[in-house]
């Protein structure tokens, strides 16, 4: 009895070990072709993967859809679904030769008809400005289209390269109706959508038929990583711990405040990316006391950008004194319009506006204290910066009451127009971001500043639609940018350096990151190590 029990135990043990040995390489192989990335925090909370209607372009959009054109880090344009293009001398006709042999994830072909169907879909959406200059799309042949313009648009190529201009499958789009982008998302990109939960995760599966990668990628065929899980983690410290403990393989956008911690982890490699955005404070120009230009200016001058960069971020990143990233020519404005810290002038302006210092240091006017709502989203970096801004505002006698909102709900909160100040950020490398955040046509969100200024509107339209050449566009946007800053609807704070962090024992990331950010071209080239 004892012997037979022992033999049974031995047999079971042997079988278990044998199974373990047999399965070990299999599980390693499965794991080897999968990777988990953490979304950049600015991508969190996107409610839809419909590129036509979304107001938030994410890494998932850029992997599911391809664009006609790709932009490189040096702002040059490269072919993708469009193999070539040419413009008439007056800028009123654009002809695009399309790539042949491209199919959508649902098997539908990509051709000229797709483009003729796709461009008009933008009408009436938040993104219609991208193709507002296009009067109509003519089909020249199966793989050639011509854009007939209402007016020249010096920004057309940039728009076509933006993440919002990923081309969806007409058949899937029409079939899904309003649910497109929520239950289904079909493009021609290197990854297919498996599932997506707002604020949680997006699971993407490799497109096995992909063989039309852009020239920004070394690998023009299917991606190396078979299964890609994109997680949304609001707490940046949690992202750090996940990477450190192997829960994720890459954090796409590392907050500068935690950079030194990431660099201290043995298996973690960091890689610098081009600067791509600004932290800023919109001022609600429709809410008291910020209807008064003097109060807005005082508030702006209270923000000490240099202190934030040198102390809070220990010199990583740049202070922002204009609303545009420093690599854009439109950011090189007359220095007199740059917003720079000046505590003495800020206090003087509030005195002039009738706000006098009360006994507790908080200013008062007509018996009402200068207490304002200061909103931000729940991410660690936003909360941190908002607390510093709160302390800097206190120095001019303004009491900022912080309100923290969930990232997926804060945009709807702005639309209710109950905010006064907010700490926000954007990621964009074109001057038309001024139009996006300050157009009187988009009040609430994205125009969180609720700015509605006749002269501003005139200059905005001139910059956006009245420029025939790139040089003219730059000049017009500079004038608009200067006027915006002179009215203080926004306070630029900080231009962060962007950094990617990944587990180098798990992943091999291309040496040179092509494109203005870490996106499809680089992910196609990223390999999971054996």
């Amino acid at each position, binding site marked *: 009895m004892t012997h037979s029990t022992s033999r049974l135990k031995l047999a079971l043990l042997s079988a278990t070990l044998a199974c373990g040995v047999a399965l070990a390489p299999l599980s390693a192989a499965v794991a080897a072709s999968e990777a988990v990335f953490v979304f950049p925090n600015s991508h969190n909370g996107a409610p839809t993967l419909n590129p036509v209607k979304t107001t938030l372009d994410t890494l998932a959009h850029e992997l599911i859809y391809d664009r006609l054109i790709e932009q490189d880090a040096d702002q040059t344009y490269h072919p993708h679904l469009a193999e070539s293009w040419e413009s008439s001398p007056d800028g009123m006709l654009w002809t695009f030769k399309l790539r042949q042999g491209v199919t959508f994830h649902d098997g539908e072909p990509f051709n000229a008809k797709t483009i003729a169907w796709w461009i008009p879909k933008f009408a009436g959406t938040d993104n219609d400005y991208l193709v507002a200059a296009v009067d109509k799309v003519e089909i020249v042949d199966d793989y050639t289209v011509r854009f007939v313009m209402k007016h020249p648009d010096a920004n057309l190529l940039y728009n076509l390269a933006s993440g919002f201009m990923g081309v969806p499958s007409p058949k899937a789009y029409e079939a899904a109706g309003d649910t497109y982008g929520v239950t289904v998302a079909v493009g021609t990109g290197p990854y297919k959508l498996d599932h997506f939960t707002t604020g949680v995760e997006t699971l993407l599966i490799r497109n096995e038929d992909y063989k039309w990668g852009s020239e920004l990628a070394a690998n023009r065929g299917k991606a190396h990583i078979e299964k890609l899980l994109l997680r949304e983690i609001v*707490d*940046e*410290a949690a992202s*750090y711990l996940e990477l450190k403990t192997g829960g994720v393989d890459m954090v796409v956008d590392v907050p500068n*405040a*935690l950079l*030194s*911690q990431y660099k*201290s982890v043995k298996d973690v490699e960091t890689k610098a990316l081009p600067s791509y955005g600004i932290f800023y404070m919109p001022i609600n120009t429709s809410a008291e006391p910020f209807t008064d230009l003097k109060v807005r200016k005082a508030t702006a001058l209270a923000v000490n950008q240099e*202190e*934030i960069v040198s*102390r*809070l971020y220990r010199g990583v990143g740049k202070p922002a004194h204009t609303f545009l990233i420093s690599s854009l020519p439109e950011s090189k404005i007359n220095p007199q319009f740059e917003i720079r810290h000046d505590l003495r002038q800020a206090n003087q302006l509030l005195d002039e506006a009738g706000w006098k210092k009360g006994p507790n240091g908080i200013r008062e006017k007509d018996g009402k204290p200068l207490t304002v709502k200061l909103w931000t989203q*729940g991410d*660690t970096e936003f*909360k*941190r910066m*908002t*607390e*510093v801004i*709160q*302390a800097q505002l*206190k120095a001019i006698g303004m009491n900022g*009451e*912080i*309100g*923290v909102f969930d990232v997926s709900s804060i945009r709807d909160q702005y639309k209710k127009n109950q905010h006064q100040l907010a700490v926000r950020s954007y990621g964009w490398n074109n001057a038309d971001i001024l139009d996006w955040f300050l157009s009187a046509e988009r009040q609430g969100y994205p125009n969180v500043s609720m700015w509605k200024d006749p002269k501003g509107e005139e200059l905005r339209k001139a910059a956006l639609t009245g420029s025939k050449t790139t040089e003219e566009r730059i000049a017009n946007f500079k004038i608009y940018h200067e006027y915006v800053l002179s009215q203080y609807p926004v306070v630029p704070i900080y231009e962060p350096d962007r950094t990617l962090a990944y587990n180098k024992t798990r992943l091999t990331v291309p040496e040179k990151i092509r494109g203005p950010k870490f996106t499809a071209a680089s992910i196609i080239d990223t390999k999971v190590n054996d």
Partner: protein
Amino acid sequence: MSLSLKTQGAATLRLLGKPFGGIGGAICGAGLGLFIFVALFAPLLAPYAYDAQDLARIGLPPSAENWFGTDEFGRDVLSRVIYGARISLSVGLTAVALSASAGILIGALCGYFGGRFDRITMAAIDLTWCFPEILLALVLVAILGPGLNSTVIAIAVAYLAQFTRLTRTQVRALKGETFVEVSRCLGAGHAHILLRHLLPNALAPVIVVAMLTTGDAILLEATLGFFGMGAQPPTPSWGAMMSSGSAQLFNAPWVVIIPGLFVALSVIFINVYGDAILAALDVKNRIRRA
């Protein structure tokens, strides 16, 4: 000699601790007293203003200048912990007082009158037991908006059911007793019976539970603070301090560990002292000892 001194010392400690329910109770009672003292006199005791940022002194370790170090904004952690005691204790005590008062009132009425009023009210109250306390509190704060007042209300509602149930059970058990019947026969009204006869006899266990619940309430406040739903910046609550310092866990662990330690200590003090008082005041035990 030394043994004798030790024995004498232990005996003295036991003697001193006796009114507080033993040595453990005495130590925890003293600790709790110290926390209350610190909370009451925070402005006098804190070496710096709790919201005074100094970005040149971010994440400094404990030193003679800053006993508990500085946080991620260069603020003095000691000063924030001292002010945090005020928030944590006052929220905990206020929420439990509110919850117990409402629970006693509703429970007494339900237990005394019974019938349909009792069934409907208790069904509604019992609904709150369908959810974990933290979930219920989070939902309430989300509805009311983050802040200290919302936190107090949320915690009070989260613990309402237990006080209501307890009081109702006590009142139901007592209302059939002879002394209540006698009082009723002598013409006493409902209010007189409830206030003079039932509640004084029903309250003892409720008060003990209230004391023990205060520790839980402080923990719940810290949890809500950690989720950013409690005291809003720059007001320091221990939970919020742990939350905002969590990003610095590996660079400046004291920013997280120290407030966490104070949360743990306050809960231990309250629970041990509560238990000790319960044991010390227990009439049955006294009789048995006698």
